[in-house]
């Protein structure tokens, strides 16, 4: 089976899944799904609930090991790697923004952002300096000492975004990053995600069931019954009614479809 790359054949994919099969007990989630994502691309993975889109993302990120098929990152096969190696890879090369539960509520905003660097044994001072440098970019000025349990939903997602980007990952995996937010806050988070990843040249694999969110992506695939199919190009997102200004961070760049 040929992996769909949708016109980016020139650059080898940074993340790729080939014929992925994954079941939970008797429930199949992926049934021969294949996808390839070139470097710097923002890919939206869409599909109805239970279609297997989150499972596809978890397989590509090395969280799940597929029952069959192959997963590649930067040309290296990763589905055969041990748990520790995959953890190290997640820490070094990947960033994650999920809908819930990705922050440690007992830690402060700064602690949470610095966490991947601390886990990578970066000196404490450097880790916190790096964490603090992200606060103004994401409109989190003055919130560094707050516990994440004490900030709003939108702020918490921006903290998650900062944490996903603080170590300059090659790929950011975002699973319904705006799922728990109202549309305005959701769009603020998406604009930040898109603008910063474009600035950093980071690849984004974005799982969503919202067309408005998918519209921020360069390209969109559809997961249905465990298969990946080509979808129509995403429509341009509509601008928030009251405009959008967040902190001193970079403004969203061109969506560049």
């Amino acid at each position, binding site marked *: 089976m040929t992996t769909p790359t949708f016109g980016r054949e020139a650059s080898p994919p940074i993340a790729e899944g080939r014929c992925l099969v994954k079941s*939970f*007990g008797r429930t199949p989630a992926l049934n021969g799904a294949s996808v390839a994502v070139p470097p710097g691309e923002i890919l939206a993975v869409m599909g109805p609930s239970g279609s297997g889109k989150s499972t596809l993302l*978890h397989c590509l990120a090395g*969280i*799940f090991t597929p029952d069959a098929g192959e997963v590649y990152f930067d040309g290296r096969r990763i589905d055969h790697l041990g*748990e*520790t190696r995959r*953890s*190290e*890879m*997640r*820490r*070094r090369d*990947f960033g*994650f923004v*999920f809908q819930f*539960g*990705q*922050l*440690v*509520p*007992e*830690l402060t905003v700064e*602690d949470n952002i610095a*966490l*991947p660097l*601390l*886990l*990578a044994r970066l000196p404490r001072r450097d880790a916190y300096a790096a964490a603090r440098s992200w606060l103004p970019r994401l409109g989190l000025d003055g919130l560094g000492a707050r*516990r*994440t*349990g004490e900030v709003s939903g939108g702020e*918490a997602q921006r903290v998650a975004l900062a*944490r996903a980007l603080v170590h300059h990952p090659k790929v950011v995996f975002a699973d319904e990053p705006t799922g728990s937010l109202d549309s305005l806050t959701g769009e603020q988070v998406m604009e930040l995600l898109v603008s910063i990843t474009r600035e950093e040249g980071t690849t984004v694999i974005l799982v969503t069931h919202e067309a408005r969110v998918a519209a921020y992506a360069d390209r969109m695939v559809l997961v249905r019954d465990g298969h990946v199919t080509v979808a129509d190009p995403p429509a341009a997102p509509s601008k928030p009614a009251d405009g959008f200004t967040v902190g001193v961070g970079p403004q969203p760049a061109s969506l560049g479809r």
Partner: protein
Amino acid sequence: MYRLGLRLVARSGREALLRLILTSLAVAIGVAILLAVLAEFHGFQAVSNRPSWESTSGTAVSTTRATRGEELWNYSETIYKGRFIEQLDVAALGPRAPRIPGLARLPGAGQFYASPALARLLKTVPAGELGDRFRGHQVGLLGDAALSGPDELAIVVGYSPSQLAALPATQVVNRIASAPQLMGTTNLYRLGFGIATLIILFPLLSMINTATRLAATRREERLAALRLVGATPRQVNVVASVDAVVGASAGVVIGVFLFLAIRPLLESISFSGVRFFGYTVTPTLWGYTAIVVMVPLLAALSSLVSLRRVWITPLGVSRRTTPARPGWWRILPMLVGVPLFIDPLVSHPGKPDGTLAFLGLFLIMAGLVLGGSWLTMQISRILARTARGPSGLLAARRLADNPKGAFRTSAGLVLAVFAGSFIACVVPAFAAAQTQGAAAKLTNVLRVPLAMGPFSGLDPKTGAQLLSHLDSQTGVTVVPLYVNTAGSADSIVSCSAIRALPALGSCDRGVEAVQANFVDLLNTDNPIFFNKDLPAVTHSSTPTDESFSGLYLSGLLVKTTGPDTLERVRTYLTDFEAAATESSLGPASRKGGPNAFQMLAVQPQTFGEVAAIRNNDVDNVERVVLAIVALILLLAGCSLAVGVAGSLLDRKRPFTLLRLSGTSLKTLTHVVLLESIVPLVATTVVAAGVAISIAEPPLRALFAANLGPHQSFASAAHPDLGYYMTMLGGLALSALVVLAAMPLLNRITKPDHARFE
């Protein structure tokens, strides 16, 4: 990572602090109990390993010249109000005569050293009841090394060599025994302590495990978040271990202080019947070290084991698989064990196959522990079918979801309840068998054997003096037994004397004296045989017309009206024995040999005292078992409290959502109460029920073997009211423990606090 772990512990807000406090308190209680068991065991070991000078033996007194390193030694025991007094009569034969431990020098003639407890008694009790038994005056106290505990009654009386040589049973000793005395019960107690430690250790570790896994689900979510950003399994383990070790270490410190606070109480009680010296009731440095090292280590280990799910996926517990349901095979050992235990006892009551019975008992206990989760699942199904309201249904579903987890806190309790119920059935029935029937009427009757084995009895002249003195005492009734001149083992007894003690039986009308067997009644130390030998005189007893004058006394049965009179009689008998020995049985006139009374190392005992000595052993076993049951109940209560608090913290979100959607706090309280209490009640009832139902066959077998089928004492092998009250009280206390956690439920599920990170 260690720093991050400590940071997570130290800065994790009120909820984490609450978790830390609960963990520490639960571990502290466990540690204090473990230290207490170790301390009691050390006290017991100190006693059982004590050099036993009482076991010293020597050689017969000879006329050859003694060496300077020898002494005359005469060890005996006397009784005061049911308590034994060790008495050593001693006379140094030279300046290097050996000394018993705890004695600075040997007492001279007319002097004695008493143990502190005996010295106190001698000061308070009239001399006629106790002091007159010992010749001389007190010159000092026996040191601890001579004694097994602070309450022991012992005395070392000094004699002149010629005085002591004249006493029967005196020996020449040149070396004091230093080996520990291995009594029949020592190994039993040692085994008991071992089993008790294991039985306590199981729920204790289970509680420490529960405590360190408190609110595990929420913690696992945090750790999963760490895994998501790339923490390796090893790094997550470090964070989790730091958390567990901090809680356990705080618990160990509090536990050690708790133990030190209750230590004076421990010194004042003893499970084995003898109070230990306070300074021996210590876990020792090794015990402390083992606890301080092992408990945090076990906590870390337990925490790591519980984190296996986070090993699997950084998505945490969201994808966990439902644990396998417990199968019916779990109760199979019990189903096999019950007939295996009962059959040998019922089919061969006289001589049951002990191996099969023990195997059966082991299988029953294994079945109870294994089958508990299956039972919990069945109960949850019944609850689900019969539940009328939402609380019953919610609790039933929760129990059905994880019956193994629900039963875990009760697992240790099952064995304790089983053992406690079994003992509570057997001991009262056993005690009743010894105290009911004809023997009960002889409780205050003193047995004075005067003929035994080669000893012919008390000569007629001395016997007449003794009887005349005893008859002159108020509150004293004597039944003299005479040696049968026909050479039979049966004694001759007067029918008029028998009337004073109807429990001994009665003669046919017109008969003045009969021959009857009193050997066992006078000599056996097993009270279970008393009823077998009573009545001693029946219509089939052979009448005799022999005159009592000129007959040797083979024994006396002396009835007294109260304990003081009894001790006066006993003191008189001791004095009389010494006087009679000096006047008629001195070295010059020893041809006739001493009588049995003089040779007996133990003074005469009442029937009640004989029964009490045997009952004391049984009571000690009962006390030890009930103490274990009480400790395990305490542990189960703590486990329950910890478990309930943990499950509440874990389910903060669903419970708050239920409350937000209109479920009343009362309903949620019912859910928690039901899901906590139902497994506890079910397992308690089953364990107690099995124990009570299997307790009767062994009793029947025991009595059938010893008494024959005509006796029926095993009629009431069921526990007394106190037992049922204790069980009900324990369960009520458990319900209160669960209810005590309800303010927490209210606080954490308050709708205005509803906020999920």
